[in-house]
């Protein structure tokens, strides 16, 4: 049985921003404005109040605009988006820290919000005292903490120091203790912001599996993180926020691909006129492009062959051996491969004039996903770097779901090579040998 845990309906939140401070031209005007500044300051402070405004005000900034979604009990929902997309504001509204300007959120159950680990931790108090303080801040009662105290301390691995002042703890110990308190909350709704990224690797792993356990126990979890891996591991469904609006929601892999692809805005082609072209005094970059080879196919599909073209204008005094190298990265910033003319056996030299390089990627190599050329180097010889360009191209290899064996979602793996298999039945006699 699944029931709605959180129902967010048309939630909007406005802030007032951008009050221009004008500089005074004359001494008289400056003194006058200084005298009336208390009144002005009062008005500015008043404006921090988010509830008094008319909608047309041009200083109005909508941190969230008509956001609606719902989360079931036992479901884990991820929220991603750039800085300033409204993620934190949304979490703050759901955790009752601030109110929406319009709209409402219906919550069924107790909410624990972990927008920060160790809220209210005081360094002068002992670990034990802080567990109780932090636990009650998060909404537990003293009795509940009594019951779970041993489990909390055991999970945090700081048993020996539990009666020591927290200021004598290392940062890691502090964070582990704080996370342990949070992880032992038993509420129907849990809101988590970035807290998974705490502690060392073993503890992070432990925290992650604890969160999975929490989600499985029937708690509705909302998770905001910049860490795509955490979201992918924990959330089936994800919402993509941008400028206060939901621009995509659905299966995590799809949303994630759209989001990470969107960062680079799919730049498949860039071209410059010679006089505006970026470059150094020896080389200018005129054009960079990635394209499908097959005519009349608008997208690059997994398995397709495609090519990169880079055009330069060289201004070299003498004919020199020139090498072009680029890095191809996937959406998680993993380096997929390095392409370089230096690795081929084509000897060529160039002096002044246009130089065109084309690199063809063989078919049946890359899987679907968002890729980008993060670095492009031009070298004289093999080691003399004369120009470097970052984040130059970005493109998508579009998954064809029809081929996904009936399963919707990304086929795992970076590569999609055509493999040669041999399958022979009835080989008993061979094995006997």
């Amino acid at each position, binding site marked *: *049985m699944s*029931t709605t845990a959180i129902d967010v309906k048309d939630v909007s939140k406005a*802030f007032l921003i951008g009050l221009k401070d004008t500089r005074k031209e004359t001494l008289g005007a400056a003194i006058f404005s200084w005298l009336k500044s208390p009144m002005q300051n*009062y008005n500015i*402070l008043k404006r*921090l*109040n*988010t*509830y008094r405004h008319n909608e047309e005000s041009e200083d109005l900034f909508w941190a969230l605009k008509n956001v609606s979604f719902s989360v079931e*009990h*036992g479901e884990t929902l991820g929220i991603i988006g750039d800085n300033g997309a409204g993620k934190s504001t949304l979490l*703050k*509204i*759901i*955790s*009752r*820290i*601030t*109110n*929406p*300007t*319009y*709209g*409402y*959120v*219906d*919550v*069924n*159950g*107790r*909410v624990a*919000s972990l*927008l*920060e680990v160790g*809220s*209210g931790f*005081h360094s*002068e*108090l002992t670990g034990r*005292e802080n567990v*109780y*303080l932090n636990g*009650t*801040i*998060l*909404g*537990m*009662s*003293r009795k509940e903490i009594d019951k779970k105290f041993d489990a909390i301390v055991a999970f945090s691995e700081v048993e020996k120091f539990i009666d020591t002042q927290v200021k004598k703890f290392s940062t890691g110990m502090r964070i582990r203790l704080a996370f342990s308190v949070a992880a032992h909350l*038993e*509420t*129907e709704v849990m809101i988590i912001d970035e807290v998974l990224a705490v502690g060392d690797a073993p503890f992070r792993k432990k925290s992650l599996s604890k969160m999975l*356990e*929490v989600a499985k*126990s*029937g*708690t509705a979890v909302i998770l905001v993180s910049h860490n795509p891996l955490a979201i992918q591991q924990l959330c089936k469904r994800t919402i993509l926020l941008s400028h206060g609006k939901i621009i995509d929601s659905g299966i995590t892999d799809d949303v994630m691909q759209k989001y990470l692809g969107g960062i680079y805005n799919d730049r498949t082609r860039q071209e410059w006129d010679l006089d505006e072209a970026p470059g150094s005094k020896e080389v200018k970059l005129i054009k960079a492009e990635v394209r499908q080879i097959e005519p009349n196919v608008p997208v690059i599909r997994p398995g397709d062959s495609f090519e990169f073209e880079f055009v330069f204008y060289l201004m070299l005094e003498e004919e020199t051996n020139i090498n072009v190298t680029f890095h191809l990265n996937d959406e998680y910033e993993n380096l997929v491969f390095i392409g370089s003319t230096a690795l081929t056996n084509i000897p060529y030299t160039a002096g002044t004039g246009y130089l065109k390089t084309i690199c063809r990627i063989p078919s049946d190599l890359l899987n679907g996903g968002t890729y980008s050329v993060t670095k492009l180097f031009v070298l004289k010889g093999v080691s003399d770097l004369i120009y470097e360009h970052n984040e130059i191209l970005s493109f998508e290899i579009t998954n064809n779901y029809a081929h996904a064996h009936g399963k919707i979602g990304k086929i795992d793996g970076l590569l999609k090579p055509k493999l040669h298999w041999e399958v022979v039945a009835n080989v008993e006699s061979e094995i006997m040998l």
Partner: protein
Amino acid sequence: MKSETADNIRSGKPIVKLRIEAAKKWQMLDLKELIYYKDLLYYFVLRDFTVQFKQTILGLLWAVINPVFQMVIFSVIFGKLAEISSDGIPYPIFSFSAILPFNYFSQSLSGASNSLVGNAGLLSKVYFPRILIPITPVLSKLVDFAIAFLILIVMMIFYGISPTWNIVYLPFLILMMIMASLGVGMWLSSLAIQYRDVRFAIGFFTTLLMYTAPVVFPASLILEKFSYTAYLFYGIYPMVGVIEGFRASLLGFRPMPWDLISIGAVSSVLLLITGALYFKRTERVFADVA
């Protein structure tokens, strides 16, 4: 994790339902919620109190040293040099019986006015009833008050003054003192987080409050120099009734000033109600301005 959560959901047990929407302008305190969070209040008070004297040499002694030094200075300057009347009570105990409730009042106020600003980090990260924050210093300063009270008892023994039957009214006076402190504390705390001017004004404000309260002089002086009407007006300041009540019930040199106490009680209740209303009204912007 074998969790109650899952059981609750499976068994269809009713769980807390809540609607979060644009805040209403006026709302009253949610007492049920305050009771739910009583353990948090306890730990807030404990934190406030334990942290106060951590890493000091004299520790709790500070709760004694402050008022005793004040008493000595007042006795020398106002008692000996200025020869201000003290209704026939020995000046040291006359002033100490006022310093005791007044210090509680002023410490609660400065504690409360810093409380929201000092906990701004919490306000923007976790939900809990905000009102607990200004309540905390008002409660934790009661410990200092109790310690200083012991000094008063020692002084009463020293001067051979025994309390009158009116001491039965003392709890009521203490309650009035707490209500007035909480009322003003709520006002100041929510003003302070919106307008940080309060932080600069508070020192001067408490000094002002001290010299207007009958700490170094008796309230009877107002009656003598002005009129009974002025005297009653003076009683609007709740600490007037509290201080004169303390003197009358503990030292017994004059009858209980019921006129001052009843006016003061009314104004402390009003302060408490308006303070709570103003706090709840401004509460919704705290996270945005913190």
